[in-house]
Each structure stands twice: as structure tokens, then as C-alpha cells.
């Protein structure tokens, strides 16, 4: 069970690590080659299912070069390939969202104010724009968690990752239906509780929500 959570957390980290710089660069260099490249990469990432990317990564990085172990989770770097193949789709979707929401935010009045008062471009981007642009990204992340957990089932099968997903698939093949139902309920419970946590994160990221709530009380 913790194996699935570990895998999901690693995949989200990989996705954010890719999506943040890529989305920001695409937004600053809108319509230039950096933006176009990033968007093409994102479209490809969105379209490659984890059970295609997984075996390809396995062939190239594990079999041909031997940099990473092929499957399992005991070896020290075993998490890299599963996390990358699960996180790629999420990374692509988040990149697109971050780009479009950053582009929207950059037109706001408070960005002009920040620039007018002489804040450096980096400060405007990181402190003023990114914080606001991250809200829709967070919403999307919550929605995509379901796809991520569903994808985890497949990724675990590809890489023999001993988590809930692999247990689910094996119990389906053994026709052990109580175990199937249990595994699905447990994964759904993760999904719902992670989404609740995200909702709580909104108030921390956007204090305006808190004010609205206390004003309405």
C-alpha cells in the first residue's frame, strides 16, 4: 500500500519538476521557438500512454545502457523509470495549464503595478504571477489525481511495482472479488482525501478565499 503512495508522490514530483520550468519558459517566450517546442513536447507527453513509454524506457535505459534496474522496487534507483513513465502525462497537462494561466495572469493590473513600482522581472514572475497562476494548476492537479492513480495500476503492472495496483490486477485475474473491491475502495479513498487536502491548500495559497469565508459567516 505505501508503495502506491510513494510511486504517486514521486510521479507528482517529477511532473511538477518538469512542468514548472517548461510552463514558465513557454509563457515568457510566447509564440517563440521555446514556446512552440515546449508545447510540442507537452502534446507528445500527453499522448504517450504509460504502458508504451514504460517499455520504451526499459529497452533504452535499462536494457541497452543498464543505468536503471528493469523492474521491482528494491534497487536504489528502481523508482526512476516508473515515476517518469507515470508522471509524463501529468507533466504535459500541467505544463499546458501553467502556460495558459500564466499568460492570463500576466495581463492583470497587479502585474502592471508590480512592474511600475520597479520590481525586477524575476520577482514579478515568481512572487506575483506564479502564485496566482498556480491556483488553476492546483485544481487541475486534483482532477488529474484520479487519472494518475488509475495510471498507477498500469504502471505498477509494467514495472512489477509491488503496490495496490499490482495487487488489484492480480486479484482480478484470480477472481478474488472481495480483494478487488477492497483495493478499489482504498485507492478511491486516497483520491478523495488527497483532493480534500488540496482544497485546504487553496486557503494557504490564496488568502482571499479565507476572507470570503469569514466574511460570509
Amino acid at each position, binding site marked *: 500500500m505505501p508503495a502506491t503512495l510513494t510511486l504517486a508522490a514521486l510521479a507528482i514530483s517529477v511532473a511538477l519538476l518538469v512542468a514548472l520550468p517548461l510552463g514558465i519558459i513557454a509563457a515568457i517566450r510566447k509564440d517563440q521557438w521555446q514556446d512552440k517546442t515546449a508545447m510540442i513536447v507537452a*502534446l507528445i507527453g500527453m*499522448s504517450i500512454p504509460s504502458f*508504451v513509454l514504460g*517499455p520504451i524506457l526499459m*529497452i533504452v535505459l535499462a536494457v541497452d545502457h543498464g543505468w536503471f534496474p528493469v523492474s521491482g522496487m528494491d534497487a536504489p534507483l528502481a523508482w526512476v523509470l516508473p515515476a517518469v513513465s507515470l508522471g509524463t502525462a501529468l507533466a504535459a497537462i500541467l505544463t499546458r495549464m501553467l502556460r495558459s494561466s500564466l499568460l492570463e495572469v500576466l495581463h492583470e493590473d497587479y502585474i502592471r503595478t508590480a512592474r511600475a513600482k520597479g520590481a525586477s522581472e524575476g520577482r514579478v514572475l515568481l512572487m506575483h504571477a506564479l502564485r496566482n497562476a498556480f491556483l488553476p494548476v492546483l485544481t487541475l492537479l486534483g482532477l488529474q489525481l484520479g*487519472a494518475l492513480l488509475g495510471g498507477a*495500476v498500469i504502471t505498477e503492472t509494467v514495472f512489477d511495482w509491488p503496490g495496490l495496483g499490482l495487487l488489484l490486477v492480480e486479484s482480478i485475474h484470480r477472481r478474488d472479488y472481495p480483494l478487488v473491491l477492497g483495493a478499489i475502495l482504498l485507492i478511491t479513498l486516497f483520491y478523495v482525501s488527497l483532493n480534500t487536502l488540496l482544497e485546504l491548500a487553496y486557503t494557504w495559497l490564496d488568502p482571499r478565499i479565507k476572507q470570503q469565508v469569514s466574511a460570509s459567516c
Partner: protein
Amino acid sequence: MLAKLAQLRWSTWIILLWLAMIVIAPFFSAPAEQMQLESLLLSPVAHFPLGTDELGRPLWARLLSGAQTSAYVALMVVTVSATLGTLIGMLSAYIGGWFDTAVRWIIDAFLAFPHLLLAIALAAVLGPGIGNLILALTLVGWVGYARLARGQTLSLRGRYHVLAAQSLGVRHRWILLRHIFPLLLAPLAIEATFGIAGAVIAEAGLSFLGLGVQPPQASWGSMIREGARFILVAPHLVLVPGVTLMLVILAVNRFGDGLRDKLDVKSGF
């Protein structure tokens, strides 16, 4: 603009190629299931342009057959779930009251489960096979269209042209069909395009898990599943269906993006 047209073009080409594969697939269904054990696991050679699989079946014929499977499943799933979802969503928003409350509850209950997971669960309970696969994906798929149609209808219901039609005594059926439905078409078409990509992925994913199409019938997902066992000896068994699958999904997604830009849905409503 020219770049955009060019991009649209390659995706259209791949989609056309996919459709062409479906059309010619029936003529090559025999070799797709014919075992030739003397020529198993061959790499691509002149006689077998894409090589053969672990039972000596030519990969190109399996690929064609898999194209047929994926397109059949995607088409059925999207058609049925879009029709059903749109109908339920429109009625729910238009009628309102307890009916709407009930529909909203059902939609929320479905949305609480991760999409793919619910499909996996349904496929597991229903048992494997292509019919059950379509049933499972449709049962999961209608929710998205219902939510979209419901939301749009709610905002359209108060528009002046609908109110005018109502006060003129136009029948409700007619209002829904001629005054509300046409305005839903653009967002629904985009949703359905991405729905095709989603259904193709889901079909391949479930078949990959062994819950979808059963042997000897070919599906790209089950080809990858079977090929993964021979990944060290014959990586082309995974690469050929994998890359094909990726290209088709890529093309459909790109097509959906193009459609969204063209119809400009965000600002339209």
C-alpha cells in the same frame, strides 16, 4: 497561421491513415490469426515487413486488426456515451427539481471514483471481452458529457431566445432540440474528440491488463502486453504497436486542439 495549417495537416493525415487501416483490415484478417511456428519472433525482413510475433503471426496484419478493434471500441463508446450523457444532462438541467438533484447526485458519485479505476473495476466484474469493455467504458464515459451538457443548458435556459420560444408556446421537446442543442454542439464536439483519444487509450490500457480484447483477436494493448514478455529478444513487438498507438492518440489530440482553437469555445459562451 500557415504553421497551424501544416500542423493540422499531419494530424489529419494520421487519422486518415488510421481509417484506411480499418477499411483494409478485413481483407487481411486471415494472416492475423494464422500461426506459423517456423517463423516466430522474426525481426523485420522482406517477407514480413514488421516482423512476426511469438506465434509467428505477421505483425503488420495484427497491427491492422488492432486498428479495427481500437476504432470500433472508440466509436461505439463515444457515440453511445455522448448521446446518453447529452440527453441526461440536457433533461436534467431543463426539467430541474428533484430529477436534477438525483442526476447531480449520480454524477457526483461517479466523479468520486478515478475514471480508469472505475472502468477497470467494471471490466473486472463484467468479465473480459470486447462487448463488456465497451459497456464498461460507456458506463464511465457518459458522466463527462452529462456534466458538460447540464452546465451549458443551465446557462442557456435563461437566454432570451429560449424564453421567447417558451412564451410562444413552443413544445419543450422542440426547444431542447432546436433552440438549445445546436448551441451545445461545439463544446460537445471538442469533448467527443478528446473522448476518442481517451477511449483508444482506455481500450489499449484495459487490453494491456488482460481485461479487454481476448486472444486470438488483436488489439494494440494486448499486443504490447504479449510483446512485453519478449522485450529482451524482440523489442519490435512492443515498439510497433506502441508507436502506432502513440501517433494515433497524438493526432486525435492535436485535432481536438485545432478544433478548440477554431471554434473558440472559451470566449463563445
